[in-house]
């Protein structure tokens, strides 16, 4: 068991110790279970745990978001007893793309038919497919071809600036075992900003963070590095660049 060490007041074991250890996640299975039971019946302990959770939450900032497989949302809806997502008409306050299109298997199969087809399909999807709202003003599409040093194109990106969506289509990409490709946006004169991890086996729809949308412009560079699982530590590229290219007008 865990004997508190270094009480703040002499002779008084500091109960915060265990609350902190529980939140940090260092307790073994049996101790952790015991503390979880204590949480249910000890309001003071429960409050200390909540305080430690709040203290350590800022560390979450360092974790790079990882794209979630599209198949997961329908699984969650089924397990939660919510109607299938395509049957609902969820009012979308943010005017995001309809999940139906981005999650539709035929759409992705179609998109995967080939690199050229991918770009064409993306453009079609982004600019021609009817949206819930009236058609938006046309914005010139942006594209980027990310190439290896030898000039071979590894990823093709199509950017919809208005919605802040980048569709990234891999060609034939070899990723070293145990590594994952991560996408970066590098505005001119700026440091790389992560756009998340890529699935090298299929097209990826990347939702660009709002604060980076303005940086989606000609001359900005997009690049792919290979990183440890979960993404580059600390949100800065750590692995080699396997492909890069400049964004340009189509």
């Amino acid at each position, binding site marked *: 068991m865990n004997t508190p*060490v270094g009480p703040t007041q002499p002779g008084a074991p500091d109960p*915060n110790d265990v609350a902190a250890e529980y939140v940090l996640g260092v*307790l073994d299975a049996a101790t952790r279970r015991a503390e979880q039971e204590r949480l249910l019946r000890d309001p003071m302990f429960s409050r200390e745990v909540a305080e430690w959770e709040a203290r350590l939450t800022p*560390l979450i900032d360092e974790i790079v978001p990882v794209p979630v497989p599209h198949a997961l949302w329908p699984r969650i809806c089924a397990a939660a007893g919510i109607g299938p997502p395509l049957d609902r008409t969820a009012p979308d306050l943010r005017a995001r793309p309809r999940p139906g299109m981005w999650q539709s298997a035929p759409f992705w199969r179609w998109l995967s038919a080939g690199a050229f087809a991918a770009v064409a399909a993306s453009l079609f999807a982004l600019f021609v497919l009817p949206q819930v709202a009236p058609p938006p003003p046309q914005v010139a599409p942006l594209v980027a071809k990310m190439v290896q040093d030898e000039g071979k194109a590894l990823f093709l990106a199509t950017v919809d600036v208005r919605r802040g969506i980048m569709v990234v289509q891999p060609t034939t990409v070899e990723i070293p075992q145990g590594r994952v490709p991560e996408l970066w946006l590098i505005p001119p004169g700026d440091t790389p900003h992560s756009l998340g991890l890529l699935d090298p086996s299929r097209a990826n729809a990347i939702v660009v963070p709002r604060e980076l949308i303005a940086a989606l412009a000609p001359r900005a560079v997009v690049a792919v590095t290979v990183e440890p699982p979960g993404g580059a530590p600390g949100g800065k590229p750590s692995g080699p660049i396997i492909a890069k290219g400049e964004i340009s007008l189509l």
Partner: protein
Amino acid sequence: MAASSDIHPFDPDRLRDLLVATAGGDAGAFEQLYQSTSGKLFGICLRIVQQRSDAEDVLQDVYVTIWRKAAQFDAARASAITWLAMMARNKAIDRLRAGSVERHSAPIDLAEDLHDPNASTLALAETNETNRRLDACLGELEAQRRNLIRIAFFEGATYEELAARCGAPLGTVKSWVRRGLLRLKACLER
């Protein structure tokens, strides 16, 4: 704010509103909450359980629990992102402790400085006071204590695992972590 594949995911008021609406059974709000936070929570789960299929199972459990128990979220007691992130961490750690997942554990070099003052380069402008304070207080700790605390937090490693990975006696590791946590708390409360 760290790099994110989501649109402004951690606007605290928006997340709180979505969570409260979810508690009221609003499936549309739940879907928006999922769109805004699932990438981040998946990242949290993956750091702990490592295998994608395990992390997907955990994430599914997390969101089903959010849907069913959103009413337990108390905005007076925790921020929405704390509630969501800690639920993901807890479920991932529970899964890890259940012993059903395979994990690769790299040795820890305690001398190496894992603390990266520029970790939040991507969003310095948005890094708030709370984040800066935790960063500063972690920076005040001795390197080995700080490193152990960070690895434990991100990977959900037990004392035993930390001791094995850094090659230090269990008692020493416990003492480093506990003293580090006490110092951290004292610093944050200054």
